[in-house]
């Protein structure tokens, strides 16, 4: 009876082979066409698009507080890539600053409130993008 048992075993293996652990499957090679952005999907990208449209004119294309309009402002716009600033601000702090502007927390009214212009999702995605900003290269 060993032959039928082996056959049965083979049939079982064949039929259950769809249950292999995913790690056994060949993984496709990483694509060669990377965006210069962390490949973080839709949300960071929406945040970046919003940043470029609404914020970069003062805060600069890379967020270092060096946008075209920055030199007219006193106080100067925040360098958003500053690690100290990033460390001490929670996501909620950043969202609140975007939502209510500088005036609401005793800072400059130069930073306007965006809570009526942008929706909650957009503000959250902006915060996600801000977290990808890195310190200015030396």
């Amino acid at each position, binding site marked *: 009876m060993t032959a039928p048992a082996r056959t049965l075993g083979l049939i079982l293996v064949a039929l259950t082979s769809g249950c292999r652990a995913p790690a056994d499957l060949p993984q496709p090679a990483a694509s060669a066409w990377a965006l210069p952005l962390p490949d973080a999907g839709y949300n960071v990208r929406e945040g970046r698009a919003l940043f470029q449209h609404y914020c970069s004119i003062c805060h600069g294309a890379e967020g270092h507080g060096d946008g075209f309009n920055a030199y007219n402002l006193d106080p100067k716009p925040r360098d958003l890539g500053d690690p100290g600033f990033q460390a001490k601000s929670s996501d909620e702090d950043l969202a609140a600053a975007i939502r209510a502007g500088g005036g609401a927390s005793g800072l400059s009214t130069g930073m*306007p409130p965006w809570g009526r212009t942008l929706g909650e999702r957009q503000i959250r995605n902006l915060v996600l993008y801000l977290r990808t900003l890195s310190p200015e290269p030396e």
Partner: protein
Amino acid sequence: MPRLDRSSDPLWRWFALSSVVFLVVLAISPIKDYFREYRRYQESYRQRLLAAAGSSKELKVAAAENVRIRQLWIPALGDRVDRCPSCHLGVDNPKMADAEQPFRAHPPTPHTPDDFGRFGCVVCHRGQGRATSEAEAHGQAADWSSPLLPLRYVEASCGTCHLAQQVPEASILSAGRALMDRVGCPGCHKIEGRESWRSSAPHLDGLADKTHVEWLRAWLKEPRSLRPETWMPDFHLGDDEIQALVAFLWVQPARRPLAAATDVELPAGDPDRGHKLFSESRCISCHTIEGRGNGSAPELSGIGSKVSRRWLVDFLGDPHAFQPETAMPRYDFSREQLLDLAAYMVSELVDPSAPVAGESYHPASKWIAEGEEVYQKYGCAGCHRIEGRKDAVLVGPDLSGVGGKAAALLDFGVRDDLPHRLPDWLAAKVSEPRSFRAALKMPEFGFTPEQVTALVTALLADEGSAVPEAFRVQTAVARYSPPGRFGQLVRQYRCLSCHQVEGSGGDISTAPLDAEGSKVREGWLESYLLLPTTIRPILTERMVPLRLSEERAAFLANFMANVYLDDDIPGEIFPGGSPPEQAERGRRLYYERYGCSSCHQLAGSGGYYGPPLDDSPTKLVSGWIAWWLQGPQRWRRDVRCPDYGLDATDARDLAAFLVTPGRQASGSRGAP
């Protein structure tokens, strides 16, 4: 009676054996299911919920969770069944925002979390919704045509339903669709939704009047060597092909013969006066000079090395006669001004590395006939026109449904380095089209990696099987054509190349003209049309001086003041002049409460982002100011002036301040 020995009867043995086999076969399906990952995941998720439960109610809910297939059924989308939530258990649980996969909550998108039940998962992410094993669900099975879409391209799925060229929440898709039109993909390929695309590439008749053979040869050899930013792609033509194509193009008669026979007969112009006129006319509102300028029209820094003076004089006099679909206005330059402009452009705007004109050229008829074949083979007529010829367009493959093609159906040619996936194939096709096989025709555009991603996203959006009508979001293509004499002038000056009216027109100006009459005073508009002042100094794109007669300016201003009105926007709200106490309160709001001066110049201080407000008493209608301030995005959705949520009183007081003539900042420079 002999005892029947059942075990020795071969028939009984076979019966027993087949029963066992039958039992085993019956057991395979439940056993398979028993080993699927989702059971393990659901148990693990239940443990998580139990551990994280903060109340007895949550504990009870978690304890009651049992292992089962969880699915979304969407009858409206062709009876889709998406079983993804069988593993992705926390997808709608905000507490799982930072959990590892497969439990992580879906990050917010314009449709998440509200539309889970309406759309399901597969419509955006692709893969196989009915599958219950990870490999099959993610579409890694060899025969599954629609594997999971890499997140980099996920905005393609927005484009499945949102068919407009610009989808505000999908920046990469929008960039891809705009780029597709800009570089002329629809000239060679049939692409769903882009049927109304029209090329704006130069007409190719009369080239012998316009340029010289050496320039044309160098251009066809490698367009980007003469103008690095051009969208004319590199066809990698052989020397014989270039020789033939030049010969063919050289003999195409001009649709508009030039007035002067040779340059020699033209009076000389004054390059200095031409330079001044060139600057005054703000040509770089559309063109660029060494990269500076808007870039919607060609770079001009090497134009003197390309075109002949007599062609330039005639072209600048009436561009529409040479190229009817051009976005360029027909300025009423005088003959002397045309000569000055041309003198400046051909003498100063030269490219020292461009080839210089040689002797006159008379092509042999053998080359002309061969050139016609080359012209047709590469589908030049897809983008360029030659008056009087009807050449085949769309010489490339039909791209309808290309975003839904199975990888198995794609021709990878010699590219064995590529993963066998559609997005990778498309990316390689648009960036290195000739690398697949010899004798391919598609030219090379020199896209940046980011442009490649955008194009691939736009291509992936057309999956072939259209979503049901109810899901499609399509904006009708607006075709506004203003009436009568106003319309004639709008067409002569190509106002809609930059401005929009009723959704028609270009996107260079951020100021749609639909309600221009409600916004500005007629007198201001008239003087602005005569001599446009700079409204937003930060922009390169500025209103060009159209050299209008006073009568025309008055007519255009009067038409807009009376027709381009919005009934929702109030007119003058201070007919007897703005009350001083309101204006004073408005002044304090302007400087102290709201950050107006961070963007606007007023009385010598403030930012340079929004329009300076010094001329607002003579420019703006007071009712419009108050209306604008209570919701600037009603004017245009992407207006950057933030909505401060002003109440009617604050808005009126600010308006009163801004329309008070001769108002000063009262010694206050910026916020105190």
